[in-house]
């Protein structure tokens, strides 16, 4: 599989590839990002500074990166997938080591002006690596224990490292992203049942471990879980964020208070109003109509990706696209669930809308891979 095969695979070259880009998907991403710019402008009190403008610049840069990645043949990405995984894993270890050596937890590596978060990279690398693994594996063997243990290790290694940081949100996303690729690859449902069972056991163990010497998660994570379970018990303390977020959401009503009229965000009742809790401002200012519209846009992104995956006869491309779609779904679902009080506050930003460069670039790079799979997919039975 040399790169010279590229032209014969998709049958397209140069300008033709640009036409083959999944433009509907690009349009959806632009719509979501634009909603983000509006909200960042609003929470800054009607100012492009300090959030909206940098976010736009990053988004445009991200779009360029996405298209560039999309132009490159999918086989290249399959080839580099194991490498990407390895590099990400090494960086994760490095970050953990730095955290031990330096002061406190650190999640990023400074590369000049860019702050690289290995855990963000790992989200894509894991999906790529698993997709590449299953693309090579004989489908008849996918459910054999030996061939299940290997991908399981691929998933659990970074999960353990991320938990070490500690970053519960990313750990969940890695687990679910990796799990969904295995699921799509056709691993027997019994394994998933067993995983759920052991997961439930683990959660029980974690809860039980509180206050003991072998406590499995940090105290602040425990607090988050308990305040999630009963935010009203301490409305001014740890439950304050959830309570205020729900007030912002609920006070929006059907059509909202109007652009820039959200009092909860403007008066700083909302925590992290430009990052993790930006959805509450959107809900406050645009109401149920606004939140539903955003939800529909996100769902469409997922549906477009899955549609592309299903029609893709290249197993690597299909599995990767599906895995990325699932990860993307989890991103916004976890964030929304979090601010609506359905999940503990785990620190997951709202994709494309929350302020944040690293997450945005990584996400658009992932969609670049989706584009690559889409553009270079072997179509139909021609």
């Amino acid at each position, binding site marked *: 599989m040399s790169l010279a095969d590229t032209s014969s695979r998709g049958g397209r070259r140069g300008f033709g590839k640009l036409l083959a880009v999944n433009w509907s998907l690009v349009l959806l991403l632009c719509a979501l990002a634009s909603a983000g710019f509006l909200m960042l402008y609003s929470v800054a009190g009607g100012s492009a500074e300090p959030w909206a403008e940098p976010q736009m610049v990053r988004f445009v840069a991200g779009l360029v990166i996405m298209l560039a990645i999309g132009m490159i043949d999918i086989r290249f990405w399959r080839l580099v997938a194991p490498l990407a995984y390895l590099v990400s894993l090494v960086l994760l270890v490095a970050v953990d080591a730095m955290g031990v050596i330096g002061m406190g937890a650190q999640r990023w590596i400074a590369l000049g002006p860019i702050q690289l978060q290995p855990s963000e990279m790992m989200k894509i690398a894991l999906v790529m690596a698993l997709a590449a693994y299953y693309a090579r594996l004989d*489908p008849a063997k996918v459910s054999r224990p030996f061939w299940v243990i290997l991908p399981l290790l691929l998933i659990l290694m970074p999960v353990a490292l991320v938990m070490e940081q500690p970053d519960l949100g990313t750990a969940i996303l890695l687990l679910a992203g990796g799990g*969904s690729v295995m*699921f*799509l*690859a*056709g691993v027997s449902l019994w394994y998933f049942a067993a995983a759920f069972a052991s997961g439930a056991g683990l959660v029980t163990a974690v809860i039980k471990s509180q206050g003991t010497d072998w406590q499995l998660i940090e105290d602040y994570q425990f607090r988050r879980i308990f305040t999630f379970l009963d935010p009203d018990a301490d409305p001014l303390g740890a439950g304050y964020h959830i309570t*205020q977020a*729900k*007030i*912002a*959401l*609920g*006070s*929006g*009503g*059907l059509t909202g208070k109007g652009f820039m009229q959200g*009092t*909860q965000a403007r*008066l*700083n*009742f909302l925590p992290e109003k430009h990052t993790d809790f930006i959805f509450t401002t959107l*809900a*406050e200012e645009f*109401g*149920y109509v606004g*939140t*539903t519209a955003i*939800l529909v846009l*996100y*769902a469409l992104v*997922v*549906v477009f990706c*899955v549609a592309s*995956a*299903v029609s893709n*006869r290249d*197993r690597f491309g*299909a*599995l990767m696209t*599906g895995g990325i779609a*699932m990860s993307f*779904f989890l991103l916004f*679902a976890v964030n*929304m*669930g979090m601010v*609506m009080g*359905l999940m503990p506050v785990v620190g997951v930003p709202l994709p494309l809308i929350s302020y944040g460069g690293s997450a945005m670039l990584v996400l658009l790079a992932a969609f670049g891979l989706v584009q690559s799979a889409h553009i270079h997919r072997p179509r139909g039975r021609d």
Partner: protein
Amino acid sequence: MKGGAQPELPGIGRRAVLLLGLQAGLAGALAWRMRDLQIVQNERYRLLAEENRVNLRLIPPARGLITDRHGALLAGNRQNYRIVMVRERAKDPAAVLARLAEIVELPSDRQVRALKEMEGRSPFVPVVVAEHLSWDDVARVAANTPVLPGVDAEVGLSRFYPDGPSTAHVIGYVGPVSEADLAKLQDPDPLLQIPRFQIGKTGIEQRLEHELRGQAGAQRIEVSAAGRVMRELGRVEGTAGRDLELTLDLGLQSYAMQRMAGQSSAAAVIDVTNGDIVALASAPGFDPNSFVFGISSGEWNGLLGDDYRPLANKTVTGTYPPGSTFKVCMALAALEAGVVHPGDGVSCPGFTALGNRRFHCWKHGGHGRVDLRRSLSQSCDCYYYEMGRRLGPDRISAMAHKLGLGVAHDLPMPAVSAGNMPDAAWKKVNRKEAWTTGDSFNYGIGQGFTLASPLQLAVMVARVASGTAVKPRLIRAVGGEAVPFEAPAPLDIAPQHLHAVRDGMFAVSNEGTAYRSRIADPAMLMAGKTGTSQVRIITAAERAAGVTSNEQLPWKRRDHALFVCFAPYDKPRYALAQIVEHGGGGSAVAAPIARDILLYALCGGLPPLSAYPAEQRDAIEKARAVTPPAAEGAATTPARNRA
């Protein structure tokens, strides 16, 4: 991966659809939750958001003004310049405070307190650093703004008493509401929750607090989560307190204070035609403004330690044995009871024997035969021992009450004393003893159990002079509306008896004991009665050794000097009661002061010298030259201690 390999690859279709279904379910749950929060529970959360956002802040109303009968301001509100500091803008509050202390007076303990308060509050909350500053101070602070980051001048309203000490006892003062006040007052007014809100602590300020306070305004403000004020949403102005117009005449009041300066003294002047209290002066005064600003412990201890008791309201709260001034009441009681006629003579040998006790007349050797007129003008004690014996306590008490003694008059001041005008039953209850004739003798000369306040004595004279049941009043108008006035009913006393007593009082001032303190102007002739009430028992041993003169006694054991009077005699206008605590003889000490105050009231200012007896005019003219009449001589006297 060409050709034949492809069909073996299973599509991901089935699993993808399963996954999509799961996702659709989750997305549906999210949508459902959104609907629940945003549509179903919208109302609840909208209210919560509003509660978050909007704070109600009270605007203190302007306190009602208090003026005298001519509109002169007795209690007003003046701008209170204060300096506030915002910690977050000051950066280094201690350094800024030190710089501020170079510009305005700022004691180090005040600096420490301000620093502590700032640390205890959110960094953006202005904390009052200094209060009651002058405009000059504020101007200096404004000029130094660049080196005083976070320092601002603010202006609020604070109570102010322009003529402080003159009316301090009547008006009282305000002070910041205390925990004790909150516990005591069953007052739900939210204004009281404002820190440092000023409420009346004593005097009219306290008793008419409900009129003066007014109603709070409210300001709806939008606040941020941290409590920072973002903007004003709406404002409802409060209602200012109602203004009070008093019956007092500030000119007369100030003059009385000035005239009494250096004495522990009190004077009450009543308009006999309607009961208006035109002066109610208690000397020495104190400066109520000190209390508003927070009195220093030195000043406070000085006030408390002063034997002249500047804080006491001697006019209505202080009660004294009325002494011979009570003979006015005795004479009327005797005439009304029919136990004596004006012309009846009583013999005064200098004492009255009762069993083996002797009750002495003040005059050694006695007055000889005394009728009613002489009994008053010479203040014969024996005559009134006899009247006491003839009347018995109950009839004396009844007349006293009729004349306004032994009754707490309804005045808007705390601790208005009822005095004591006992009857037989009173002694039975309070002393567990039967009334004795000796008690009646003492009653007759206003000693023993009898107690009256200067105000009550003034009311007594006003009633005798007018023949009506004059009721004293202090408030002319509230909020611009005149307080309804009821013409006093005639007293149930025969006019000829009233005339006989008035005639006796005329004789006191123009022939008798108070002759030196008469008014010479025929249009303003005065009638009065002297009184010298003992605050000690003269023992038989003392009497044997010759009565110790007042000057030889320590101040606290000297007699009280009293004088009651009214003028003009033929058309009474003002009644006055005067007391000089431990001043000595009523005729020598109290009467001259009383005459001057009464003349001032009658003339509406300093009287012409022609009003005085010819032989006194030179001395009075000289005295006036020394003390310019414009000077307010009523300032707080320095602390004395004679203990």
